[in-house]
C-alpha cells in the first residue's frame, strides 16, 4: 500500500480535530475533537510501524498506550466538565471567562458572572 494514503488521511483527520477544538463552544464537543486528533496520531503510528517493520513494534505499543491514556483523559475531562456544569450551570467554554484578562472584567467579575456568583461563593466556602 502506498504510504501516502494513511499519512494523508491522518493529516486530514488531525486538521478536522483542530478545527473542532478551535470552533466548538460546548466543552464535550471539544473533547470529541481532541479524540479525533488522538486517533489521527494513532493511525500515523500504526502505519509507520507497519512500514518500518520495527522489531520492538514501538509504534503499535505506543498506539495501545495512547488509547489507554485517551480513555483516562476522557474520564478526567468529563468529570471536570460535569463539575464545572454543576457549579456554573453551563458547559460553554466561551462563558467561563473568570481568569480572562480584559477591560470589561474588572476584578475578575465578567458581565455574565452575576448568575454564577452564588455558586462561586458556595464553591469558595466549600
Amino acid at each position, binding site marked *: 500500500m*502506498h504510504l501516502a494514503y494513511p499519512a494523508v488521511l491522518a493529516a486530514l483527520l*488531525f486538521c478536522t480535530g483542530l478545527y473542532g477544538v478551535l*470552533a466548538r463552544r460546548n466543552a464535550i464537543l471539544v473533547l470529541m475533537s481532541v479524540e479525533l486528533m488522538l486517533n489521527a496520531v494513532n493511525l500515523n503510528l500504526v502505519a509507520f510501524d507497519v512500514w518500518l517493520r520495527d522489531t520492538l513494534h514501538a509504534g*503499535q505499543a505506543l498506539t495501545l498506550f495512547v488509547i489507554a491514556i485517551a480513555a483516562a483523559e476522557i474520564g478526567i475531562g*468529563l468529570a471536570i466538565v460535569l463539575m464545572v456544569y454543576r457549579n456554573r450551570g453551563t458547559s460553554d467554554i466561551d462563558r467561563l471567562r473568570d481568569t480572562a484578562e480584559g477591560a470589561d472584567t474588572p476584578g475578575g467579575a465578567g458581565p455574565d458572572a452575576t448568575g454564577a456568583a452564588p455558586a462561586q461563593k458556595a464553591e469558595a466556602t466549600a
Partner: protein
Amino acid sequence: MSLAAHGFLSPSGVEIAFLLVGLVTFGAALVTVTTKQLVHAALWLVVTLGGLAVEYLLLTAEFIAWVQVLIYLGSVVVLLLFGLMLTKAPVGRSPDADSGNRPVALAVAVAAAVSLVWVVVDAFRTTWIDLDGPAQGSTEVTGHFLFRNWVLPFEALSVLLLAALVGAIVLSRKRATATRNSRSGKEQR
C-alpha cells in the same frame, strides 16, 4: 522494494478499500465537528472511530483494531453520551454550537491541512508499505512485543489508569459541604 511493481494509476485492492473507508471516515469526522445537533456529533464520532478500526485492519494491525472497537466505540462514546445527557445538552438543533471564532478556526485548520498534506505527500511519494507476509499486529505478535519489551511502561500505565479512576471519582463526587451550601443558596433564591 522495486518501484516498478507499484504505480499511482494501478492501485491494489487494499488501496481502493483504504481509500473508500478513508473517505467515509473523513466525511464522518467533518460532520462530527460541524453538525449543530450535539447527540448526532457523538453518533458520527462512532462512524469515524469505526472507520479507523477498519483502517487498522487493512494495515494488518488486528489487535489494535479490536482494542479500538472495544475502548473507543464501547466506552469513550458511551461516556461522551452520558456527559452530554448529564449536562442537559439540547436534543434538537442548537444554533450556538459553534463559537464566534469559527472563521479563524477554519482558516487555521485549512492552512494546517494544506501544509501537512503537501509535506506528507512530498515526503512519502515513492514509499510503499509491504503488507505481504504474516500480519504484524496479530494478537500473538502483540502479546510478544508487549510483554517482552514493553512490560514496564505497561505496568506504569495501569498505575496511571488507577490514578485517573480515583481522580474521576473524587472530582465527580458531590461533597457534603458543597451540597449543603448549594441547597442553602437555592433556598435563599
